[in-house]
């Protein structure tokens, strides 16, 4: 009989099967992920998710009997009052009279529930946005503490054994304990042979005694002792941790439709994701505005509507106020994303641009403006006033990007600016 301990076998044996399964259900999973992302907070986009998808492509058909029709006999246990000849009303649905023959996993076949891990969720979420692989890698980069060489230690893994150090220690120990060296031994043996040839019995005896002593001493004092071992030591070096704050500015006046808000939300999610991968600590500030602006929580930000005109500069003022109050630029990296449908009252444009140019852009790492529109909007329509106003800020090297977004897939190009090495104004 053998007992084998398999607990330490590599895990994730069925990972390959799972990948095949996800690939198979890709389309449905994408839909499910899209729905899930809509229902999520900006900051928790990167969690795992319990999703359910329709069984369509996942059905494994086989020839089997239908549940109804024909003549069947069922044998059942636990008879209480029946005698031969009793009639029993047919149970209401399916089951063919076999009592309750409901499928053991309850719900039935049309929905399939399972859990996506965080990475899988993110993968599909990002794929939907059509991020190129490079960007994905940057976003998904997990933070490993860097290891740096830090001297030597007496313990460690064989792979990090330092031979030079170990032998140096061995050498000094051998010298200190006067371990006979190989040349000493050979020398003695030569003399012994000479003595034997010279027939000097006394000398031979004394030399032999000495020879035995040397051998014993060599044996007692090993060439390498565990005491000599030295390993290269590595120390985890914490990466510099910075903190960032992300401002989400959005026009919530009546002209912004739900789908526009959804586009904006996706952009905010992506930005947040990016920042959390770059910075250890990210705070999010939501500022909504109509003709006046206020800082709100996320729920209010996305889901409540306000009425009123549209004055963009109020939001910028509010942002400036919050920065001054809570986020000194010396210790915070400031990112801002503004979403709007491009409406602004015309006398405000100048103020907004000045505010951005003079105050906010110098303070921020990056300022992104996305103009959301509905998919069917006419592409040839003239640029909006706000767009025209902001255009003057687009100059090479400026830390500002602006984009028009109609579809989800448009969101990424804004991001490319953010990821590109030498940031060019879009």
């Amino acid at each position, binding site marked *: 009989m053998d007992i084998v301990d398999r607990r330490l076998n590599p895990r994730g044996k069925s990972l390959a099967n799972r990948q095949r399964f996800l690939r198979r259900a890709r389309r449905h999973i994408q839909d499910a992920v899209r729905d899930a992302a809509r229902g999520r907070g900006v900051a928790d986009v990167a969690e795992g998710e319990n999703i359910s998808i329709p069984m369509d492509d996942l059905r494994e058909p086989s020839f089997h009997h239908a549940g109804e029709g*024909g003549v069947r006999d069922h044998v059942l246990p636990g008879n209480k009052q029946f005698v031969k000849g009793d009639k029993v009303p047919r149970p209401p649905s399916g089951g063919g009279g076999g009592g309750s023959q409901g499928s053991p996993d309850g719900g039935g076949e049309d929905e399939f529930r399972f859990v996506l891990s965080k990475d899988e969720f993110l993968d599909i979420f990002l794929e939907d946005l059509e991020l190129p692989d490079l960007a994905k890698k940057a976003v998904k980069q997990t933070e490993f503490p860097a290891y740096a060489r830090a001297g030597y230690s007496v313990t460690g893994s064989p792979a990090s054994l330092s031979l030079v150090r170990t032998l140096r220690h061995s050498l000094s120990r051998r010298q200190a304990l006067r371990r006979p060296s190989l040349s000493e031994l050979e020398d003695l043996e030569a003399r012994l042979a000479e003595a034997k040839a010279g027939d000097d019995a006394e000398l031979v005896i004394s030399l032999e005694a000495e020879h035995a002593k040397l051998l014993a001493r060599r044996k007692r004092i090993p060439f390498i002792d565990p005491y000599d071992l030295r390993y290269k030591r590595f120390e985890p070096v914490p990466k510099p941790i910075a903190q960032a704050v992300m401002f989400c500015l959005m026009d919530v006046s009546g002209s912004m439709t739900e789908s526009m808000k959804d586009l904006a939300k996706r952009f905010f999610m992506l930005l947040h994701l990016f920042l959390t991968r770059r910075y250890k600590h990210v705070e999010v500030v939501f500022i909504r505005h109509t003709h006046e602006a206020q800082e709100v929580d996320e729920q209010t930000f996305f889901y409540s509507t306000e009425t009123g005109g549209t004055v963009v500069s109020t939001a910028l003022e509010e942002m400036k106020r919050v920065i001054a109050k809570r986020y000194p630029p010396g210790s915070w990296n400031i990112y801002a994303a503004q979403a709007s449908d491009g409406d602004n009252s015309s006398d405000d444009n100048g103020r907004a641009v000045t505010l951005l140019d003079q105050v906010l852009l110098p303070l921020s790492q990056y300022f992104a403006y996305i103009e959301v529109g509905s998919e069917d909007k006419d592409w040839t329509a003239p640029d909006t006033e706000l767009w025209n106003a902001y255009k003057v800020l687009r100059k090479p090297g400026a830390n500002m990007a602006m984009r028009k977004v109609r579809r989800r897939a448009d969101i990424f190009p804004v991001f490319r600016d953010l990821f590109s090495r030498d940031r060019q104004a879009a």
Partner: protein
Amino acid sequence: MNIPALTPATMRATPEMLVSGPDWDFDRLRRVHDAIEKIAVGQFGLDVYANQIEVITAEQMLDAYSSIGMPLMYKHWSFGKQFAQNEVMYRKGYRGLAYEIVINSSPCISYVMEENSMAMQTLVIAHAAFGHNHFFKNNQLFRQWTDADSILGYLDFAKSYIAKCEERHGHKAVERVLDAAHALMSHGVHRYPRKRLLDLRQEEKRERERQQYQESIYNDIWRTVPGMADAPLPPDEAARRKTRLRLPEENLLYFLEKVAPRLQPWQREILRIVRHLAQYFYPQQQTKVMNEGCATFVHYKTVEQLYDSGQLSEGAMLEILDSHTAVVRQLDFDHPHYSGINPYWLGFGMMSDIMRIATEPTDEDRAWFPAIAGNGDPWGTLRNVWRDYRDESFVLQFLSPHLMRKMKLFRLHDDADERELTVNAIHDERGYREVREALARSYDVGLQEPDIQIVDVDLAGDRRLVLHHRQRAGIPLEAEDARRVLRHIANLWGYPVRLVEVDAGNDRVTREYEDIEPRDPFV
């Protein structure tokens, strides 16, 4: 008042006490295994493959679940789907994990979970490593259809072969073949050993014998009896074609593998792999009740012995009994959670009953089971039963009136044309045989699986493949799934496929499916 002195478990602990606390270690597992072996082989006379017990974690158990319990398996999305399903059920606590999985191989591999307590490990070793193991090694179905020595080697080959195919032909192509093969898995087994084609010499010999026989029975008087003018049968093209293709054929995978005109060699090999797997699992489907019954009965009797000889503490025994009763629990048919007859319950009940009949029979038992009643050799009787029967014949032969009364079995007749169901037999003198027969039939895979055969191929014309479903008792196929499977067949075959449902009683066609054209066939 006389209060019996209670002996704490620790005081009962003697040096031979094997199982007392919850913790287990490898040394104790080994000793328990040896103690059980002494009982199972020495006293019960079981004959087992060498055991290999593997300790795994819960996660690995989930892994094993999703590869149909085999230690190695090729990759396919359906296993991933199963894993996802099991994982959700397990994480939410809807379902516990099995305590063990046992594989019909030589050596016999049993997986035990590290979370099990020592008492559970004892139970599991007795159950899997001896009960199931004995059954695998001795039952005639397993002996006839599976080769325990080579299954792991074969799986290894299958896994690497399919991986290689994926590398060479791409995931998608391989996945499609596997999907199609899996859909036909239930109709990819040989139910009987196949007839060998005769070679020329044998045919000659047979012809000679036939002539000799004719001569020996020749009697001139028959010539004078007026009869029908015997018209020679016209050589039937269709009949010849069928003989040449060896139709009808019920092993669909086999037929497609051998005959499908457009498949690549590697695609045939994949069909073959899936077919071999189906064949390997075929005996297990037919012996669920017996296999589990055998294992449960063996573990029950073994721990009884262990306890009686003081090797098992009371606490451990209670724990074992607790899970034993959970395993053999049977709900009544009107219970909201009733989900069919529990094979553990039926198997264990019947085997205990056989032991009772062999040792202390009643007059009724003597009348019903003259061959075994009171023969005084319960283990010998059981060993024979385990060797020679499958579920269907086992129930038909050994379900006793005593047990039917105890289980209160009754038969419900369900005719789709009637408004109500009829109770047409119960556990009484008039009904025993009927109930027993009906129960036995419900374990006959031949009746549970639809009878589907390939009956014709129009080789000269459009190469359409014709399948018949021979309906028993008017039970139709589930149409939507049938169409999906037909699509898979059409893809493998490369030409249209038609399914016809035929009443097995009178050969009348009851339903014709439309021709299914291959969509994007394999080439």
